[in-house]
Every structure is written in C-alpha cells, then in structure tokens.
C-alpha cells in the first residue's frame, strides 16, 4: 500500500482550514451557551417567531405532502446519478460561456478562487451569503492572498464586523439582539451617524449606506448557489435584501462556489424547490428576490462567470448508504428552529458552519466521525426535524447510525470511553442496540415520529431534555445520567401515547 490514497477512496474535509470543526466538543460548548441568558432569550424569541411564520405558510399549501415527496425523490435521484448530473451541468454552463472548475477540498477551492480574483487585478471581492465559502474558510484564505472579502448580507455583515461566527443557517446573527447590533455598528462602521437608534429599520438603512459604494465599485463577486440545473446550466440564488442581485449583476466577474450536491437534474425541478424552500426557510410564500442566470449573458451582468464545484468530504457522505441522505438538504434551516437542543444551545455550540440537526449529521460525515464525535449525540431524537424537513431527511435515523459508527471507531481504536460517551445514556445503549434499532425498527419508529406532537412543553424545560440533561449540570465533568436512553425513550413514547 502506498501512502497516497487511491483516487476513488473517499476523502474527508481537511483539518486546519474552514469551519467544520469546533475547538471544543458539543457538551463543553453547550454548557457555556446554556449559561448565557441573553443568548437563550434571543434564540427563543427568534425561533418561536419563525416557527409560527413557517407553520402558517405551509398550512395554506394543500399539496405540501406531495411537494415534499417530489423534493425527496428528486434529491435521491440526483445523488444516485451525481456523476452524470455534474457532467451535464458542466457541459451546459460551458456552452453558455461560463467556466467550470473542480475542487476536491477546501484548500484547492480557496486556491482556485484566489487565483481567479488575482487574475482580474482586483484586490477585493463582495460576497453574497454562501454556506460553502464559510465551510472552506474562503475569507481567511483570500486575506492571506492579500484580498479583502466583504460580506454583504446584513446578518453576515453583523457577524463579520463583530469578528463573530454565524450561528444559524438563515439568520446567522440570530444570537444578537437589536441593541447589540446598534452598538456594534457604532463601533465598527466608519462615518456612521452617532444618533443611530436600535430600530431595525434604522439599522438596515445604515447597512445600505455602508455597502452602497462598495457595490457600485465592485469588480469581482463571490456567491454561493441554492440550485444548479444540469439540463440548462442555470444557477439560482434565493435571497431577500437585494445584496445578492447587486453581487450577481454589477461586477465584471462572478465566481460561484457550490457544493456538488446542489445540482438538480431538470428545470422543472425548480418548480418544486422554489415552493418548498421559501416557505420552510423564511416562512414566506416567496422570498423577495430569486436570481437565475445561465453562463454569461451578453450585455447584461458579469462578463466572466465561473463555477467552482466543491467536494470537500461530500463524496464520503455519498459513500455511506444511510448517511448520504444528508446531502439532500436544501439548507432551509427549518430543522434548527424546531430543535429543542438548538433552541437552547444556539449554533455556536455545534462548532461548524452547519448547526442544528442537519449540522449534527452533516459535519461529522464531512470531517470523519472522529473529528466531530460528540455531534451525533446533540439530539434527543424527538423527530421534530424530520417532520418539518421539506425533503424528508430522516435525521433521527442518521443520528443513530452515526452514533453506532462512533462507537465502532472507538472500539476499533480501543479508546477509553470519552466523558460524553459515559455521560450519555446513549453510549451504553448504542453499543448494543443501535444498528438493530436503525434497521429493524426504522419503519415502526417513523410511524410514531410522524404522529408526535411537536411542541411538547418546549418553553418550560430549563435544561436539555432526555439524556442530554447531564450536559446542563454546571460541573467540570458531566454527571452520569439518572436513566438510560432506552428508559427515557420508552417513557417519552408511552406518555406521548397517553396524551394522544
């Protein structure tokens, strides 16, 4: 065996670059977050607001179940034919005057983007919210190459000005309230009106003034993409503020960095996702702006259009027969807003650009389970995430599957159990039951999950529910749980049954 892996061997996202690994384990980070009452208040308010909005606009769609079924099937069909879809996409983008680049990991994607920017002669780029570029740590890489990257999404601007980290997929500054944002603006924006109030309207207007000249002068933009249509080569960005339109329209050069899983086979598929995404995400019937472009459009918008297709661990997710469904995610963030764990700990505890339930299944698979071993335990398996997921990702089953993997990895390494695997009732329980549970009982459990009541006494719980309660105890080492996971689960199930 040589040291270089075979080209077909799955590779994980490399360490030391980007934002997929936290400095601390989830329990450590969560314990700190739980001790911050301001954070919990901000999160509670924001997630409650958006849950209600989502519920209202989903309820008015008579065929929501059919749309979810279609969304799930389109994504699964895409992943099963991903090589073909990407080749078609590449062909169409190229035919329309775009240039396609392939990046195996974060480092090579960063290198490609830095080179493309350098070739334009520009030393700065404007950016529109893109999870992929945060995942790969593009801003840092550009800074090292002497290029300034300016976030233009209001929330991203708040995060960037504060030297902070995003904590939510849709609302990255969800952990900040208006007073904190006002203080930040006063401190960090040059020439700002010192009389600025904390009225969200005034804060948004301040951001508009701050970014306007930057947009008008920008020569290069970097964007993400929500969808890419293989059939036509069309890329799609869904947004609200118009900063996306600015970035996609004004500069001469547009560089889009996109995970390989974002491709969809046909134009028609967008009719499904452009219904599922806005309603699940912002809780609107449609987001204010959706931009679609196909290569370079003569006389309209950027003349040089690049697409960087990013792997960075996605192929190893794809290689896992159970875990691969995590690639179906359209990043709506609905699962965050309903998650009893996320609502209490916030996004930073997950240590990754992908927080909440989706983060708990995606990050460990992208990095390799040994780098994010505590994340699959960051859940109560209550099933609320599955209920709201517009593409029906069975997050609880994948969590259980990853817990089993974690135990196997540790067993193979003959590791002494980590504190969290001791603390978690789940640890003892997973060793014996995990696989049986995830396979044999999958269908019957699903039936129960689907019928469950979602908001069970959510606001009243003062600690993390279930076995995770151990993490909320203010001690140096987590306390062993009072009940095993199985006992907890059995009780939950029966009490749920009685309630119904």
């Amino acid at each position: 065996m040589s040291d270089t892996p075979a080209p077909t061997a799955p590779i994980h996202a490399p360490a030391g670059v980007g934002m997929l690994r936290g400095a601390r384990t989830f329990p450590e980070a969560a314990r700190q977050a739980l001790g911050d009452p301001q954070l919990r208040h901000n999160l509670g308010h924001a997630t409650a607001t958006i849950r209600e909005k989502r519920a209202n606009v989903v309820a008015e769609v008579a065929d929501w179940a059919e749309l979810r079924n279609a969304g799930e099937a389109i994504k699964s069909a895409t992943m099963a034919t991903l090589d073909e879809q990407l080749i078609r996409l590449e062909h169409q983008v190229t035919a329309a005057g775009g240039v396609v680049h392939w990046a195996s990991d974060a480092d090579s994607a960063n290198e490609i983007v830095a080179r493309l920017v350098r070739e334009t002669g520009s030393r700065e780029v404007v950016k529109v919210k893109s999870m992929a570029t945060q995942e790969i740590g593009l801003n840092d890489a550009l800074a090292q190459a002497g290029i300034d990257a300016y976030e233009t999404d209001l929330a991203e601007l708040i995060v960037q000005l504060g030297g902070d980290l995003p904590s939510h997929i849709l609302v990255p500054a969800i952990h900040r309230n208006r007073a904190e944002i006002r203080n930040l603006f006063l401190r960090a924006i040059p020439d700002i009106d010192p009389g600025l109030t904390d009225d969200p309207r005034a804060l948004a207007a301040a951001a508009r003034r701050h970014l306007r000249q930057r947009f008008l002068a920008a020569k290069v933009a970097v964007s993400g993409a929500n969808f890419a249509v293989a059939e036509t080569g069309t890329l799609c960005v869904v947004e609200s503020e118009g900063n996306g339109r600015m970035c996609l329209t004004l500069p001469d050069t547009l560089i889009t960095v996109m995970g390989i899983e974002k491709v969809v086979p046909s134009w028609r598929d967008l009719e499904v996702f452009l219904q599922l995404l806005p309603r699940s995400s912002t809780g609107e019937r449609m987001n204010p702006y959706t931009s679609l472009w196909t290569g370079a459009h003569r006389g309209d918008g950027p003349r040089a259009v690049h697409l960087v297709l990013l792997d960075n661990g996605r192929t190893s997710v794809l290689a896992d027969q159970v875990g691969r469904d995590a690639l179906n995610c359209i990043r709506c963030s609905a699962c965050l807003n309903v998650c009893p764990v996320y609502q209490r700990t916030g996004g930073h505890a997950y240590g990754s650009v992908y927080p909440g339930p989706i983060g708990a299944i995606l990050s460990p698979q992208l990095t390799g389970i040994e780098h994010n071993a505590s994340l699959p335990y960051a859940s109560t398996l209550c099933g609320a995430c599955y209920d709201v997921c517009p593409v029906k990702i069975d997050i609880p089953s994948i969590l259980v599957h990853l817990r089993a993997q974690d135990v196997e990895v540790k067993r193979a390494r003959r590791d002494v159990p980590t504190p969290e695997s001791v603390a978690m009732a789940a640890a003892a329980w997973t060793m014996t039951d995990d696989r049986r549970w995830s396979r044999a009982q999958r269908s019957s459990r699903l039936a129960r999950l689907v019928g469950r009541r979602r908001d069970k006494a959510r606001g009243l719980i003062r600690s993390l529910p279930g076995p995770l309660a151990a993490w909320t105890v203010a001690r140096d080492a987590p306390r062993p749980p009072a009940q095993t996971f199985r006992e907890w689960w059995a009780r939950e199930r029966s009490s749920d049954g009685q309630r119904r």
Partner: protein
Amino acid sequence: MTAREATLARIRAAIGDAPSVPAIPRDYRVRGDLEAGAAASLFAQRAAEYRAAVHHTGLDGVPALIATILASAGDTRAVVPTGLPADWLAEVPSSVLVYTDDGGMTTEDLDAVDVVVTGCAVAIAETGTVVLDGAPDQGRRVITLLPDHHICVVSVDRIVATVPEGLHRLDPTRPLTMISGPSATSDIELTRVEGVHGPRNLDVIIATAG
C-alpha cells in the same frame, strides 16, 4: 489525474452500490384551478401583502396612472428599457427626465435615477411574484436594481396561478429575476424590514386589456 477526474471517480465509487433512482412523483398541483379574473385578484392581494403598492386599470389607463404614481413619489428622473411601449410615458410631464437605457448607462448614471418603469414576463398569483426576463420591455437587470422605485406593469394575460405554471412559461436561458415585494430583511430579531439594497418601493400596475 485532474481534480475533475478524481472527483468523478470518487462519486462513482461512492455510488458503486447502485442506489435506486426513484421515479419523481409529480402529483403536486401544477395548474391552479382559478379563472383568469380570480388569478388577477389573488395576485393583487398577495403582492400587496408583501407591501407592493397595487393598482388596477385598463390598458388605456396605464399612461395616466404612471404619471400619477411618479408625481406622488416626487420622482424627477426615470429610466425605461428600449422596448417599453412609448405611449406608457405619454402623460409624464416634461419636468421628469426620462432616460432610455440602450445598455450604455453606467452604474453611476443609474444610481442617480429615481425610478424605473418596466413590463414583466410572468406574474405568479399564489406567491405575489413578478418575473423579469430581460425582454425589451424589461431591460437589463441593473436598471431594475439601482433606482429606489420600481413601477412594474403587469398585463393580466401574464398572470398565472401557480409557481409551476410560471416557470413553465419562462425560458431558463434568459437572465431571470423573480421579485416578490420590495427588498426586505429579517436579519434583526426576525423583524421584517422593507427596503435594504434593492428598490425600497415597488408599484405594481395590473392592466386589463381593453
């Protein structure tokens, strides 16, 4: 081996178990069950809920309505695409400077303009959305982006009920912009604020033929 070949090889290895390719169940609603008139009024209602100002008129009432809207907004500089029906601006007073963008206006020029007047390719009733596709009556994307006020004339025959019907009418190879109300953000405490970088004011004129 290039990164392209390596990535494709990793993908093929990853799906080496030949996962099934499910058929796509498209039994969701494609066509809305609305009469033409009902679609127009649903569109009006939904666009207004997203804080667009919605107006109704016959096609021959469009010029007067545009003049009225410009006057009440106090707009003095307007830009229009080359293919806008000329008579739509017939009643705009000469005190309003009207530029026709033939692709030559700079971003600075456009930044100094108050208002843009366009048609639209499609309007989707259920979501209150207008879609621009860069046709001659809509122009390049930047002209509807920099001015702070957008007046969009929607002829009723362009209104469909559902998102699938809307996309079906569009040509994906054109530059497309779907607009649902003025620009907005909910980034601060989930409070919706209208008006960030895109036009802060959107007027929609629904024009009935005859």
